[in-house]
């Protein structure tokens, strides 16, 4: 084993007297003693209690409204229509109404939600080409094989953006109207800045345009089969929101972890009255351009309106979990204290 040392002398093979080799490294041997464990438990219990209460108060101050519009009102008509693939190209618009009892104060966010839509299937998640969407020209014409069968159309023309994810983009659109006492007012939503900075600026890029228009860049490609528009027609008005860098596309392309999810559609434009303080209470309608079929996979569609706090949306799980944890720890610490008092006090259980 150990290398023979070439030290001369009678003690040539004597091992070194180092703390490491002799396993005498200075060390701290912590031990679970009553002095440390019990106070720690009590402290943790109170920390959790405080956190729980604080979070609960925070969450209570938010507002949230969920509206499952899948078959709501006259959307039932569209729902039926979308059952039939042959009528997929036909427009269908429906309107649903709701009322807000208490004004939504502050920034209000508008989400669309899907239930039972599996964006997290392995093959589905693989079915995209990041190289294409970061603007690699080579990839534009040669989508990765992972995109199959949405890599090329029947004529062999490359699909842009390729893959199942892009193909299945959520394509309902919403118009929110406030039925104010003085008549309906369109609630304008900001539909940009919905994405992570990294997504918008790094992960998704249009092919480099050397004085070419976007349309020319994308020449020789075609749209995904379920799309109505080509990729460079997503927002012709705004070149920074068109092509691969379209916010809606980017939001969709960020796959959800679970089959029930919501994605940001827009947020309230608070520049004008009566929306400067958020959404006032009252009645609202949403006009929906109902395109996305959920009937085949027994999914549901919903819109969510919510205000946010510093730790995200209205999620009661964390505050409650903290409160429950706190009480569990408290019970445990009491039990441990009793046990310690009965058995271990003064080290009496440690005698041999």
């Amino acid at each position, binding site marked *: 084993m150990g290398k023979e040392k070439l030290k001369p002398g009678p003690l040539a093979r004597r091992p070194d007297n180092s703390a490491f080799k002799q396993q005498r490294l200075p*060390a701290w041997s912590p031990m*679970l003693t009553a002095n440390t464990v019990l106070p720690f438990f009590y402290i943790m219990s109170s920390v959790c209690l405080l956190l729980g209460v604080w979070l609960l108060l925070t969450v209570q101050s938010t507002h949230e409204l969920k509206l499952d519009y899948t078959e709501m009102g006259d959307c039932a008509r569209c729902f039926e229509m979308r059952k039939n693939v042959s009528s997929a190209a036909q427009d269908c618009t429906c309107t649903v109404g709701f009322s807000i009892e208490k004004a939504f104060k502050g920034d209000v966010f508008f989400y669309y939600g899907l239930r039972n839509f599996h964006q997290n299937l392995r093959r589905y998640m693989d079915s995209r080409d990041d190289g294409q969407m970061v603007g690699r020209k080579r990839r534009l014409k040669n989508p990765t094989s992972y995109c199959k069968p949405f890599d090329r159309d029947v004529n062999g023309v490359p699909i842009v953006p390729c893959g*199942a994810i892009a193909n299945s983009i959520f394509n309902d659109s919403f118009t929110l109207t406030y039925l104010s006492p003085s008549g309906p007012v369109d609630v304008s939503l900001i539909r940009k800045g919905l*994405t992570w900075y990294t997504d918008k600026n790094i992960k998704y890029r249009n092919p480099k345009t050397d004085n070419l228009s976007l349309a020319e860049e994308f020449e020789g490609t075609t749209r995904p089969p379920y799309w109505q528009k080509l990729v460079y027609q997503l927002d012709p008005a705004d070149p920074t929101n068109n092509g691969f860098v379209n916010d809606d596309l980017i939001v969709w392309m960020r796959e959800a972890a679970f089959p029930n999810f919501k994605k940001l559609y827009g947020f309230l434009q608070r520049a004008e009255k009566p929306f400067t303080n958020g959404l006032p209470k009252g009645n609202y309608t949403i006009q929906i351009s109902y395109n996305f079929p959920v009937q085949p996979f027994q999914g549901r569609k919903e819109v969510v309106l919510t205000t*946010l706090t510093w*730790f995200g949306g209205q999620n009661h799980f964390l505050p409650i979990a903290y409160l429950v944890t706190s009480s569990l720890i408290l019970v445990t610490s009491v039990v441990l204290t009793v046990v310690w008092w009965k058995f*271990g006090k003064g080290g009496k*259980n*440690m005698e041999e």
Partner: protein
Amino acid sequence: MRCDEYEEIELKMGSFVSYIGKLFGGEKRKELERHLRANDRHFNLSYRYAKNAIKTSKYNILTFLPLNLFEQFTRLANAYFLFLIIIQLFPEISALPWYTTAVPLALVLSVSGVKDAIDDINRHKCDKQVNNRTVDVLINGQLKKEKWLNVQVGDIIKLENNQFVAADVLLLSSSEPLNLVYVETTELDGETNLKVKQATTVTGKMGFNIEALARFNAEVRCEPPNNRLDKFKGTLILDGEVHSLDNDKVLLRGCALRNTDWCFGLVIFAGPDTKLMQNSGRSTFKRTSVDHFMNILVLCIFGLLMAMCLILAIGHAIWETKAGSVFQVFLPPIPGVGIGLSSFLSFWSYVIVLNMVVPISLYVSVEMIRLGNSFFIDWDRKMYYSKNDTPAQARTTSLNEELGQIKYIFSDKTGTLTQNIMTFNKCSINGKAYGELYDFTGQRVEITETTERLDFSWNQLADPKFIFHDHSLMETVREGNPEAQAFFRLLALCHTVMPEEKTEGELNYQAQSPDEGALVTAARNFGFVFRSRTPESITVMEMGRKVVYDLVAILDFNNVRKRMSVIVRSPEGKLTLYCKGADTIIYERLHPSCDKLMEVTTRHLNEYAGDGLRTLVLAYKELDESYLKEWRQRHHEASIALDGREERLDQIYEDIEKDLILLGATAVEDKLQDGVPQTIEQLAKADMKIWVLTGDKQETAENIGYSCNMLREEMSEVFIVAANTAQGVKEELQYARRKMSPDSAEEPSVVRARAGMFWLQKTETLQDENVDGDYALIINGHSLAFALEKELQLELLRTACMCQTVICCRVTPLQKAQVVQLVKKYKQAITLAIGDGANDVSMIKAAHIGVGISGQEGMQAVLSSDFSIAQFRYLQRLLLVHGRWSYLRMCKFLRYFFYKNFTFAFALFWYAFFCGFSGQIVYDDWFITLFNLVYTALPVLGLGLFDQDVSDRWSLQYPQLFSPGQLNAYFDKKVFLSCMMHSWYSSVILFFVPWAAMQDAVREDGRDAADFQTFAIMGQTCLFLVVSIQLCLESYYWTFINQFFIWGSIAVYFAVSFIMNCNGIFIMFNSMFPFIGAARNSLSQPSAWLTMFLTCLLCLLPVVAVRFFLMQIRPTINDKVRHKVRKEGPPAPAPLHQRPRRFSTRRSSYAFSHSRGYGELVTSRGFLPKRSLKSRPALFLNTDPPLAEKQPQLYRTISEEPEEPQGPQARM
């Protein structure tokens, strides 16, 4: 490395090779009788006897790669990983890239490949060296130097002094008178005294006559190759006359020729057929019990993995039919893949995904931890023996943790417990005791290394090795005290030692037993130098004066007499009988006038016996000429009597050996190694059972048992089994058992169970039986042979296991191994064998752990051992400190490792229920690749290398800490199950808490936070933090290295996460790092940190609570000792306490020796022609170097004026 020492191993390997050869080279008839003809190669070749060549290497250049790879892939784990790599190559299945498995596997394979290659190269070298040793072979009437490998059965070879015997040979003739040959059989049976072999006269008369030898064409018929060292039966047919051959005429391979110029021998058995080889046990690849258990676990885990994958595949099928089929709009199926096939594919996907439960890093880490712990053994200064510059050595790096589980220790005696040095220590002369030192106050002074020694420089013939401390004895002798002079005169005269004076004044004694040598040497140093003998005279230098005594008679030792006497006539014509023997025997024959002296001497004898010394009582008697004449007449008549000669002689001896005058007593110490009694005491406290297996005589073994505290006066009973029939042995064993445990069942209770892989292995366990009181069992080799038979072995084991101490004496090497195997088989306990000589090799190989004592005679034991230490006492540190730590570390490591990976795999399992059983992994690919390899590799190694519950001093202070290891308490099925439950709980928390917290969450600015990547980052961070903190909880000993590893890993984790999620790397390799920005966006969220904090609390607080609870209710021995450590600080180093003085009425003396002395030989006429001083070359000149090194130069050359040569000068 010296190659001589490889021989043992090589021989064994040779047999393996020949075995293979038999398998493939056509069947070979089982040999019933060996038939050979001297000098007739043609005739002998027809029998196809094994050659003397040796092949131990396994590979050559061409076969290395395929054979080695094949061997490596026969290991289950390696094959499994290969299989994983193969299925990862299919894109439909692969959920992970192939290199995640391939890179570690390639690493593992190449490291062990290189190791094997180096080993094999060494073997090649040593094969060559041993096979190319030369020996003189008589070919076509001429002596030719031939390589060992060319020696064949039937060849006549010439051996020279200090050479190893090349094969088992029949002694034909020798340079010594009477065709005697002295051999040292240490390598063979561990006995150090020289043995005498004698050739038959028909062959002996050939002498050095080459022509006669070349013409020699006798036929030999003898038994087939076997392993009995002490038996040989055969016949020599020469010129139609049949002579019988026995063991005395055979030299065995492995012996070394001593004090014999040359001899000729006829090769009977060669190579693998030699008795040495036949005696070495099979060597098997040793694996630890933890290893075995781990293999079983891996199989179970594999089963679990399959079950999990099956569940998920079924889930996949159900999901596909219900949900997937309707989701096909968005995700069309792969063409041609139906639900069945797709579930099948998903099954294998999950096999890949969940293979984390048994990652290859487990095996790599286990090996590294063992290697590290082996280095700690090598590095331990407290196991370094400075006297011969020998550190401890872990020769096998894969058995460390088993050192912490030892239950049975089998120890050799000579060289292991004892130093194999006999020293004349004390004596009682005429009622005055000598040999001890007292200070001014009359307190006994401990004699140490530094105590001043007696200066013998006045005596030019003194032996410089002899050490004595008591000045008063020397003063008494030099003052001319008649009793003291008579005492030493007796020692110089009454013995059968043969002197050798090879060069002028260089005295060398050939003693039949080392005790006798010690006594004669003592007399030599105190001025009574035994110089030479002839059959009729003994020459002694008495205080510088040459005195020649006429040797009238030698009344030799035997077992019954337990004494020996000589009758000498001094130059003045005074006739004296000198007698020495066992006290009881001599006391019966003393003159009544000695009663008073007897009392005092008895007191001294009791003291000596209490110190574990071997005692002899000396007495003398003046004879008158007439009586002697008459006595000699009767003696002569008796010695020629045809019937009852022995009895009549004994009677005549009795007649003269009476009315003796007591002179005193001697005490000879069979020197124990340092610290042996303390070590044995410590090991016994740690609940280890120590069995001594020795080739030595029963008396000697028993005596050592007493002196190292294994046998004690206060023991309830010491049973001695020494029957000569199977029935007798059975009765004696049963008697002992009934005595110890009267109500024990007659039939042994054997629990049959199954264990091992696939539960294929049947185990039989003999239950321990409880006994009140301490008992000991001593069994001799003869009885052991019967007791090891199938019918009696359980009886033996039962009885032996009831006893505190078991001593087996006169056992052969093979019996040693059989005893070990018996215990291994029926006790299912971990065994350790410790020894120093070649005779221990088989036992060392048979035991779970073999420990060799290094730096002593020969290296055979060390070479086949797993650990080598320089001194027996280091065994306690090796076991109680290193073994315990290694076991603790390994178990902790395994527990933690399985916990960590199970948690990981279970979390992946839960996610399957949310992703349509599609094989999607909940964490980042890179996290999976790096989790075991980078993020947790070093911290867990730190745990496995540095953890210690209590320091080494405390470990030695509380040997009880060792017992959890023997019970396998730290890592067994129960522990593993609880470990699994724990990880199940952790994985539930680790998956569902983030799930609940995240599923509806958004960032504070409203953007996505419930997406897959954010969830993955958060989930894996939770997991990583929890397992890291759990590691801190596991660790008892937080050195800065551990802390550095843990904090470093955490830092590396975050650094790597951010780097892999950064912009630049995505732009360069966008398909490999799709997680761009995820870490930034996820970990900047307060809610993420709140979730992590919650999961950590929920995972870890229960662990703390349960541990604290158990510690209060049911503290383990570890807890108790650790509590003490906290309260008291480090213990003082154990004082080297002096053992209390004991008195004992039990005595032993070598006079109980089994075998007769050389008496007959000494007085025989044939001995008469003395060699001349000049005609003989100095010994130790033409020797091969390793042997010369091994043989200590015992006696210095002293220069004095040349003596006139004694005895006739003529030489045969």
